[in-house]
């Protein structure tokens, strides 16, 4: 898959930089439908993002997406996935960082790198119940504060009890 990168010099350069810097630490990379997706580990997430932001110019966070893989995951895989969609001005290149996480684990907050992650992290906390350490005010954003469940988890009931 990665071979297709040949036609995208900018992304190729970024990918090679990442390879060089975090030789063995990257858990994998795919290139599908013109989109580069790099899988990272929870422990080196911040350093990868820092590297991308400071040395490769990915200065904006486009969005964060939470995924619940309860129905599709294989044995031994973690239940949730968080995607960080990054973006760069100028050059209009995008990259996606993928981190797997289990229910009881916490991710480091990236608020210090991208202020846009403030509400995005709150939304994921609200919808999936995943914690981000170091977030300035991790409270529910959509659901009322006294709400107990997490609506976007796959085991959230669609009809009343």
């Amino acid at each position, binding site marked *: 898959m990665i071979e297709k990168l040949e036609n995208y010099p900018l992304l190729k350069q970024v990918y090679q930089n990442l390879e060089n810097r975090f030789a063995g630490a990257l858990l994998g990379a795919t290139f599908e439908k013109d989109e580069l997706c790099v899988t990272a580990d929870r422990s080196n997430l911040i350093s990868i993002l820092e590297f991308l932001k400071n040395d490769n110019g990915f200065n904006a966070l486009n969005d964060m997406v939470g995924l619940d893989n309860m129905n599709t995951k294989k044995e031994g895989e973690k239940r949730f996935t968080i995607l960080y*969609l990054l973006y760069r001005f100028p050059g*209009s290149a995008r990259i996606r960082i993928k981190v797997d996480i289990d229910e009881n684990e916490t991710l480091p907050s990236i608020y210090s790198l991208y202020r846009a992650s403030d509400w995005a992290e709150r939304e994921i906390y609200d919808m999936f119940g995943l914690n981000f350490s170091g977030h300035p005010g991790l409270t529910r954003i959509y659901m*009322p504060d006294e709400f107990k469940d997490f609506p976007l988890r796959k085991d*959230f009931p669609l009809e009343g009890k």
Partner: protein
Amino acid sequence: MAFKEILLNMGPQHPSTHGVLRLKVALDNEVVMKVTPVLGYLHRGMEKLFENRTYQQITPLTDRFDYLAAISNNLGYLLAVEKLMGIEVPKRAQYIRVIFTELQRLASHLAWVGFFANDIGAMSVLLYGFIEREDILEIFEEYSGARLTVHAFRVGGVPTDINDKIIDMINTFILKLPKRIADIETLLTGNRIWKHRTIGVGVISPEDAISLGLTGPSLRSTGIKWDIRKDIPYSSYQDFQFEVPTSANGDLYDRYVLRLEEIKQSMRIIRQALDTLPQGETLTKVPRVLKIAPGEVFHSIEAPKGELGFYIKSNGTDKPERVKMKSPSFINMQSLETMCLGNLFADIVAVLGSLDIVLGEIDK
């Protein structure tokens, strides 16, 4: 004997929070010390709903996000689905899509100018904007039968071709609009009170804007030339000639001038698209039941309010595993506090108006 800090609840029932938004405002006399938006009063769980609807059923639901620019939502979602499936949309359909999304951009911007001016107290402009928007809605009605939640496009193209009557309506509208824009400019652009209220208010620096993920006209007003129609063209936008207006100050006045300029550029695009409309099919063959092989995709378009993105993950069935919407209002709303701090109470309303938020999109 100092004035104590006042904690003020703006909303959820307040005339100018543009819907059911609540702002917790801390004021020192009239100076804003803190603004905390409280969301969720319009939360309908759309993303959960999408996971239990087929791909085609989702399209009309996207109308309900940004109800002032329903067609842009359709387009954003459909382009993501088409990219995920790997379908090519016929050229004529792409052009029709461009015409309607640009009309929708006009409608959204006209409504915005009206709301924004009304927030600052010029209430006539609201109706001037709306009377033109009415014509656009009539065109939509002629095309699809609906005015607000249009559901104009389908997976693989557009459901019906446009006929001569619609082209006539669009042409007359395009001829009429510049006069109304001139009216609005006479009322506002040179007005001293308007300038006092908007110049140097709600300023945001380019660095802050990028860090906060600001998109759309608000980002361009800080001097960053970023328009997805130009930078990552979709739906044949590369065929048309248009400018991406930018300005340097990042204040309310710039955002207002920018949007008026964008209206003019949109009219240019519509005119070009009508002149060079290619012949041919408007809908590719798509299976009745869409089953998309596992995969994931992110696609974003330049909606009137900013960058509108859809992340779709498919799992091989006819229903998506996950649809995540990157809504421009939600992202832009985060920068409210940065823009308001240290300004006066009345400026909160103006800044909020300038961000062009729609609560349907923020609360999803």
